[in-house]
């Protein structure tokens, strides 16, 4: 603590940031919780309905459950691409001696580009008429039978809207994991190598355990970002066709701003927050148990 500080000076520095944060983040959270107990279309009087919105959401809303499972699928694809890809490239990169900086920069490029641009780009990549990159590639490698309009086929659309999100942030997570891998002590690796450890053993017994704390942070980041994913599916398909690429976030957005059902939308929003908290809790719990075992 600073010797000459006064209570007033603490307030002078703390109040303005707390004010902005309260107005933009804290107060809306409380307000959402509050709204979730009401039925309100923004014009007529608010009507207190107790837990009715929650009951409706959990027991009587097929679209909600559809969106929930879609969101899990979306998350799974994003995680595999982001964490799997990140770990793979980061490990490969540590064995390279030149060009690392260049690869880091190139790999991070998609993270700098706006989601709208990415959505446009991928709409064209998936396109069938005129033929886009993906279908053309399939045609060339002799898998022409697989060519299809990826975004209007209900079997492929969820994967098709998930992939761009995964693609976009792989570089970001790679950077973080790469920085962690660099901090693995060289002596440890040398010693294991002298003891005859294979590359795979070196990775599973030394490197990976060493980066565990960072891996946990990265997993939590990727999971919470995956669960709140919105822009790309919203822009590419708006949840369609039907509800086959609807996520909880897009469903909540439509409920709020197309159907102007503010109360029910808030209920879904609260659910998204709970879902994020549960996911973080689960990850910490599972990894802790694994570390203890």
């Amino acid at each position, binding site marked *: 603590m*600073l010797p000459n500080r*006064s209570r007033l000076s603490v307030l002078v520095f*703390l109040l303005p940031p707390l004010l*902005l944060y309260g107005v933009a983040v804290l107060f*809306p959270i409380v307000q959402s919780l509050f709204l979730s107990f009401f039925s309100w279309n923004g014009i007529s009087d608010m009507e207190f309905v107790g837990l009715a919105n929650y009951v409706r959401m959990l027991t009587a809303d097929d679209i909600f459950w559809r969106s929930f499972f879609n969101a899990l699928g979306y998350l799974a694809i994003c995680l595999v691409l982001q964490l799997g890809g990140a770990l793979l490239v980061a490990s490969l990169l540590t064995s390279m001696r030149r060009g690392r900086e260049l690869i880091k920069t190139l790999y991070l490029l998609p993270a700098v580009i706006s989601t709208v641009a990415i959505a446009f*780009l991928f709409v064209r990549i998936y396109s069938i008429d005129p033929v886009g990159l993906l279908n053309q590639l399939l045609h060339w490698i002799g898998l022409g039978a697989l060519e299809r309009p990826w975004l209007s086929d209900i079997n492929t659309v969820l994967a098709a809207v998930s992939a761009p999100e995964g693609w976009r942030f792989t570089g970001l997570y790679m950077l*973080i994991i790469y920085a962690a891998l660099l901090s693995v002590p060289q002596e440890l690796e040398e010693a294991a190598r002298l003891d005859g450890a294979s590359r795979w053993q070196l990775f599973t017994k030394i490197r990976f355990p060493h980066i565990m704390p960072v891996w946990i942070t990265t997993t939590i980041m990727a999971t919470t970002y995956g669960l709140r994913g919105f822009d790309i599916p919203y822009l590419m398909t708006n949840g369609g066709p039907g509800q086959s690429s609807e996520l909880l976030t897009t469903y909540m957005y439509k409920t709020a701003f197309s159907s102007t059902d*503010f109360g029910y939308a808030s209920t879904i929003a609260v659910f998204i927050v709970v879902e*994020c908290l549960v996911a973080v809790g689960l990850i910490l719990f599972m990894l802790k148990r694994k570390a203890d075992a």
Partner: protein
Amino acid sequence: MTAPAAPITRPRAVPSDSPPPLRRRRPPSLHSTLSRVLIALIVIVQVYPLAWLFITSLRTEHDFATGDPFALPKSLTWENYARAFETGNLWLNILNSFIVTMGANVLIVLLGMMAAYALQVLGFRFSKFVRSLFLIGIIVPVQIALVPLFIDYSTINLLDTYASMIIPLAGFALPMSIYLFSSFFEYIPRETYEAASLDGAGPYRIFGLITLPLSVNTVVTVVLVNSIFIWNDFIFANTFVLSEELKTIPLGLQNYIGAMGKTDWTATFAAVCVTITPLLLVFLVLNKAMIQGLESGATKG
């Protein structure tokens, strides 16, 4: 790292009987060749779509509609760019994005630094509690704020203003910035503050004369990292802004989707190229600082 560059004649300079440095001379193993090929493939997957975006923006419409998408364009044209500027309000969108990014960054840097100063340097009894309050903003998704803010803004007539975008963008970015500033302030030695205190400097002068000037590097990092997210923000802008005059780049790009879903794709791609260029240039010039910022954001935790 600081070794001078090896002269070209180096092999001759080394006495002939000394063994060559083992590491350098070994032919590349199967493993390293494979991993290089794999890295190259993955990088192509990451970068090629962006290159393709640019190449397509130079294609003629006819070429785009009929040609093989992987082929190089038969002839290059800048016409798409001209059309992109005619169709939309590109300059206006860029200006708006610039205003929003600047406004939010000023708030984030100033308020973030102040909060971190109060938490880390001044210290007070409930600092742990305040810290965890700020932590909420990192975990909670922004979607929770959309409906309440929309309602609040419409009550106080703040919808459709720059402030309606700047406030939530700054609010949600604040926690991470406070975190970055706090972890930097930890490294400023206590003695510096004590010495200044003995000389009679109060908390305000110490903030202005010591903490602030020392934080320049962290400010750059915070601004860079936040700018990526703010410049590209879609969800707040899409929810709170309706009028053409206030649309930022992500919203402006949507204008290129014509009625009935018929889109002038080559002009759209040209517009996309124009709008991603400013951030891309900043990123390529300052990518070291940005990469460092992104890394330290997560690894220190």
